[in-house]
């Protein structure tokens, strides 16, 4: 837990992407996460089997989770039509986009809403990883973002009458800034006094949780007057809500934050691979001593990497606040585990943009598919299924941590196959 590694090279950073390499090794980078996920589903299948006592029911449970996630939508081909943006016209489309006629479409919207947040929280963890930092504070940074966005969206209209777009942008910027601030503290302390970022971010998580609970809790300065039973923030006004482009805005349709997440994935990849900042961040992550010798300010990059991570997490929080939550109550503040899912996303996605996008889809589908409003209670009790989703997440994280063992086994199997072929 000291700043510099004293002896023995550092263990391979968890989920570190191997740059370039032989195509077989690249294949390993894809295979290992897949094997990890399969293993996790297999083991949690045992839990399901012990509950249902029937192999058919176990498979049926996984199928029901898949249906509940809405991913089945892509397999329901037919003849439908879709509206052309910015016009009243519509054209032929193979999938049914009407979320009233198609349950899968409604479920898929929920999965994609969650995907948006998970991508961003995952990027928050991944970006710090690439600088050699373990950002376990995604939770606090996300929450700081939600809190700041809700405060600006609810309080700012009382001061100035901003147009809709400006109010939304101001709220989102506030969320990003709050996330950057919280994460930046950890980065600053790491860079200046060498305080380990895992410790500081854990502490910051809980400080943010309790401060937010204070702000919106009973007797807090921003608690709404109406509901004392369930203390919460005021509702985000309609003009600060993100536009919904698929589905009914009143029934949690899919908001435009999805595109923000997509753009963020591109920005992440560009920032890391095509800019000086990204080069320095990666250099520090690879070997801080060598980077320092090469004239790169390690402290500065620790701070920047954490602050940028915080921007991603804060963005996730503000999009959730303005996209579907619209208010924050103490139960949500203290019960959310999205920051830890973000760790699973980054680890499974091997800190690459594509990987994070895919891993976020997996976990978003898993969480949505096991939610009580999506999973068929006839097949598996949903309150059990949500715990099952957490177990699967935990198993994935556990196996990713030991992923090099899987890689080693893969490599050994290949050598043996090559040996057998040559004789």
């Amino acid at each position: 837990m000291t700043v510099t590694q004293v002896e023995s090279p550092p263990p391979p950073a968890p989920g570190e992407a191997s740059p370039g390499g032989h195509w077989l090794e690249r294949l390993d980078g894809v295979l290992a996460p897949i094997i990890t996920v399969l293993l996790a589903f297999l083991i949690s299948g045992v839990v399901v089997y012990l509950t249902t006592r029937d192999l058919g029911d176990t498979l049926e449970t996984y199928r029901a989770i898949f249906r509940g996630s809405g991913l089945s939508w892509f397999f329901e081909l037919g003849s439908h039509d879709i509206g052309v943006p910015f016009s009243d016209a519509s054209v032929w489309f193979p999938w049914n986009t009407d979320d009233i006629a198609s349950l899968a479409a409604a479920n898929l919207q929920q999965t994609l809403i969650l995907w948006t947040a998970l991508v961003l929280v995952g990027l928050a963890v991944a970006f710090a990883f690439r600088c050699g930092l373990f950002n376990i504070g995604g939770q606090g940074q996300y929450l700081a973002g939600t809190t700041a966005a809700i405060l600006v969206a609810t309080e700012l209209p009382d001061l100035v009458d901003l147009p809709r777009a400006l109010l939304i942008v101001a709220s989102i910027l506030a969320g990003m800034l709050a996330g950057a601030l919280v994460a930046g503290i950890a980065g600053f302390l790491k860079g200046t006094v060498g305080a380990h970022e895992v410790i500081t971010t854990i502490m910051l998580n809980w400080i943010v949780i309790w401060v937010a609970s204070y702000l919106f809790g009973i007797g807090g300065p921003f608690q709404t007057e109406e509901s004392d039973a369930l203390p919460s923030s005021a509702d985000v006004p309609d003009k600060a809500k993100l536009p919904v482009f698929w589905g009914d805005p009143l029934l949690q349709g899919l908001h435009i934050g999805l595109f923000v997440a997509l753009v963020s994935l591109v920005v992440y990849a560009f920032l890391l691979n095509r800019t000086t900042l990204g080069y320095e961040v990666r250099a520090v992550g690879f070997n801080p001593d060598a980077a320092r010798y090469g004239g790169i300010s390690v402290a500065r990059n620790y701070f920047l990497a954490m602050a940028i991570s915080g921007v991603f997490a804060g963005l996730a929080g503000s999009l959730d606040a303005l996209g579907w939550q619209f208010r924050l109550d103490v139960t949500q503040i203290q019960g959310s585990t999205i920051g830890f899912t973000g760790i699973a996303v980054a680890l499974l996605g091997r800190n690459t943009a594509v990987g994070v996008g895919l891993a976020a889809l997996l976990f978003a589908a898993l969480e949505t598919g096991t939610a009580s409003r999506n999973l068929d209670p006839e097949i598996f009790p949903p309150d059990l299924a949500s715990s099952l989703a957490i177990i699967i997440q935990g198993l994935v994280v556990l196996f990713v941590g030991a992923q090099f063992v899987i890689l080693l086994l893969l490599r050994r199997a290949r050598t043996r196959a090559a040996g057998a072929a040559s004789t």
Partner: protein
Amino acid sequence: MRRLGNRLPHGWRAVAWIGVLVGVAAALSALPPITIRSPVVPVVIGLFAFTIGLGSWIRGERRIGGYAMAAGFIGIFIGYLATRSSVGNLETVVVWGALFGAALRYATPLLFASLGGLFSERSGVVNIGLEGMMLTGAFFAIWGADVAGHWALGLLIGVLAGGAFGLLHAFFSVTLRADQIVGGTAINLIALGLTTYLFIKIYGDEGTPTGISAIPNVSIGFFDEVPGIGGFLDDVFGDLNLMIWAGFVLVLAVWVVVFKTPIGLRIRSVGEHPRAADTVGINVYATRYGAVTLSGMLAAAGGAYLSLGFVETFDQNMTAGRGFIALAALIFGSWRPFGAAAACLLFGFSSALAAALQTYSTSASTLFEAMPYALTLVAVAGVIGRSIPPAAVGKPYVKQ
């Protein structure tokens, strides 16, 4: 006696400790039973404490001097707040006997987990899975007591379940050399999912049944007869849970084991310089396995006290971050048994104060919950004397 004399602080360090006490006095001056109503008094006393702290800080006693400065500030803060509220309110909130008793109740689960973490981290394995191990202990203890019919068996089952998670953590971080923080995160998630799953599956919506055999309290009568402070002592120590007394013994036992026995020396050397330890024939892997498994068992014992001794029910995610506070206490106490115990008491006291404050200001009590974390953040930032971890903590060891 001479050795004891040498152990006592002297020089600027002693001055700094006096500063800490003066800082405490600043807060006390405005609290019952003294309740001075003028804010000037706590401010003056607090500034005096701050000056003493600054003086010793300049003379090189950074750590305790920093404590004294912090104590001065906190003393001014609390003292000032106290003069702003009515004496009646103060007397409902600040009942010293009840507060200290509650502080011990809140501190005990933290203490067990914190001392567990001490073994793990001293042996060189970061354990942020304490939270999950505590939660596991909490669930399996109450389930065990329910099934087996006796709290002792429940406690045993809880501790064994926690040990199993410790073993899992050891397997991944020592044998497979996986990242220890990743492993700890995984254990927290798995423990949360597993205990919630089993809780709902076994107990459904009704929750754990009432009347489960709980860990008993120990009633001691003679405190009442101590002249002068008998009432206070009886309030604090008269009716404590068995696990709290076990906690007192444990602190001492851990200190003896870690600093006075060959086993402790092995654990510490493996955590500071595993290669050197290996060279002199210490089995690094076995030592780490043992320490991490023990840490899981101790953390689970803390969780078991929480469910089986303190509230006598289980609820989803009932540890609610206590494992992380225990980790904070360990760091705040510089990876030492008595330091960690003192930090646990401090954090327990702040929880007790938060609970007492709830009767007249919920929002203030909520804000109070953040204090342990804020203090630890300040401590690791080095503002008041750096906390320095064991040198090899977090690094997997490869035998050559």
